């Protein structure tokens, strides 16, 4: 028994400990089961799935379903695989996340350090936008995009996601900056830094933790979004989620489950990656030492 478990955990007997571990392993396996099934079946040739047990391990493992899902599967008119739509998703998600995070940071900065009469109302309305269901805005948004000449285009889709993202990103940054000492802003003012200079040089460099939270949140939401993608993207800007749907729902030919599984995992991979990579930057204590300690 290690020292750490002795000091931090409740003391349990050998049997109790074994029981706890067993239950935990069971739930972990239960939770991983769908992903496991997907992985296993994405590595099987199609006859093995249609003719056999879904849970069985592949007898002749193959990467063909993955290749097919990525580059040759029939989606829409051409047999392009998910590749072009993956690119579409990247082209959509990167600017949408960047812009909404920047605007959220700027909003949070203004709402905490450059307060104006009625700032509470503005923040309240921005918060309200977090709770508007997507479906309600579909038709007005379509009309608006049409008027702006952005209907069915990538910039239009980015705009929609940015507008929807501002509510949450503002909430994050406002609450983070509320705890940021105002004396630092005042010191910078006396030092001669202006509105944007204070933002760039003083506020942003210490915003790492909240920026990571915001980016993970926005990235996951925008990448996984289906409704806006299917409504506003048109054919050229169609994101990964919509393409995946089209692939799986196609009513012609044989249903290639192994390809579907591989495609689904491909579609989920980037969000997983963002968690693994960005999660490491959840560093605390960046504020240490700015004020009394």
């Amino acid at each position, binding site marked *: 028994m290690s020292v750490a478990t002795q000091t931090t955990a409740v003391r349990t007997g050998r049997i109790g400990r074994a029981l706890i571990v067993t239950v935990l392993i069971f739930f972990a396996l239960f939770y991983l089961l769908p992903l496991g099934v997907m992985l296993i079946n994405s590595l099987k040739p199609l006859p093995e799935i249609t003719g056999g047990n879904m849970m069985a391990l592949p007898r002749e493992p193959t990467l063909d379903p993955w290749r097919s899902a990525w580059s040759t599967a029939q989606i829409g008119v051409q047999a392009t695989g998910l590749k072009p739509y993956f690119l579409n998703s990247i082209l959509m998600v990167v600017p949408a996340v960047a812009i909404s995070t920047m605007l959220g940071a700027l909003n949070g900065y203004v709402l905490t350090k450059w307060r104006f009469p009625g700032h509470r109302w503005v923040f309240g309305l921005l918060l309200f936008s977090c709770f508007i269901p997507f479906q309600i805005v579909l038709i007005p948004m379509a009309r608006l995009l049409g008027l702006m000449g952005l209907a069915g285009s990538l910039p239009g889709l980015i705009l929609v996601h940015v507008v929807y993202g501002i509510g949450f990103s503002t909430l994050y940054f406002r609450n983070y900056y509320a705890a940021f000492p105002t004396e630092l802003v005042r010191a910078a003012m006396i030092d001669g*830094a202006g509105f944007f200079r204070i933002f760039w*040089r003083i506020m942003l460099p210490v915003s790492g933790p909240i920026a990571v939270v915001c980016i993970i949140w926005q990235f996951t939401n925008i990448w996984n979004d289906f409704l806006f993608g299917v409504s506003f993207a048109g054919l050229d800007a169609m994101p990964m989620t919509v393409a995946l749907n089209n692939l799986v729902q196609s009513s012609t030919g044989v249903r290639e489950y192994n390809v579907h599984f591989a495609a689904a995992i491909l579609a989920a991979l980037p969000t997983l990656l963002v968690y693994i990579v960005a999660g490491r930057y959840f560093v605390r204590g960046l504020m240490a030492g700015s004020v009394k300690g």
Partner: protein
Amino acid sequence: MGFLDIDNVTKSYGTVEVLHRVDISVGEGEFLVLVGPSGCGKSTLLNMIAGLEDITSGTISINGRVVNEVHPSRRNIAMVFQSYALYPNMTVGQNMTFGLEMHGVPKAERERALKDVAQLLQIGHLLDRKPGQLSGGQRQRVAMGRALVRDPDVFLFDEPLSNLDAKLRVDMRTEIKKLHHRLGRTTVYVTHDQIEALTLSTRIAVMNKGHVQQLGTPREIYDRPANTFVASFMGNPSMNLMPARIVVRDGAPHAQVTLDGASQKLLRLGQPALAAQDGREVILGLRPEAITDEGGADSSAQLVEQVDHVVSVVEPAGADTFAAFTVGGRDVVARLRANSQPRVGAQFPFRLNMDKAVVFDPRTEARIGD
């Protein structure tokens, strides 16, 4: 016209006026301390000088220039904040030169200024560290360094020592005093600590409830407080205030006090003008150090009265022994020499130095008679 003029300045938040017609003028190189209890408006006034708060009415001018509408960065001031407000993402060196960088000073010049100040404050070895890696005293030095680098017309300090422990606070106080001597820069310093105010300043403004109660040199503030608020706020233990009545004997004014046990005692007053106020109820103010034992009395004092009285409390404090007795129902504290030995419940001959006595009107609380 002084170097820093605060002329008829008021501050209101909505309909609530928090500073009422403040008039303060100090000359170049003076060390002005704004002192008062919390909520008296001293920090607000400092922020108005800095330009961080708007001025509702009146004018503030620095070096002959009205700065009401001038941006903080162009007032040629530097400020040391209570929390130090060091930029956490920058090194000490970058912290100190940030202001110069913002003002477009060339890099070579910045480096030279940084080197000079770092040497002056002995923080040369800290320049590459981040604020998070510094102790409280070091952060305090860096915060002062950041102000010094700017070479401003006026230094502003907002309770800079209140986050330090007691020992360090006294050291830094001396340091600030030395720096002021050396640089001779006009300084405005906010504190709630009356000892800091007395030790550092060349001029003190005692504030309460948005009013300047008294503006004067530390000696004036201490010896001739304008009213009972100033008298009791400045000095520790605070000034003894006893109810008394003016009685004229042989043409000279006396303060008649009621000792414990209802006996009356006449104490000669040094203010001749009070002779015209026969019979008036007043408050007699006498600092603890003006009430001593026989051997501790000031030999140059003109008017010394002896009061024999029963001692109610004795508090030895090392260098001095404090003893209390009761006059007119109030405790009066005397500061005796450490080796005098009053006993609780026994009579003790106190010597009152009436040269130091001040008299207040009990209704307006203002000092009268001189």
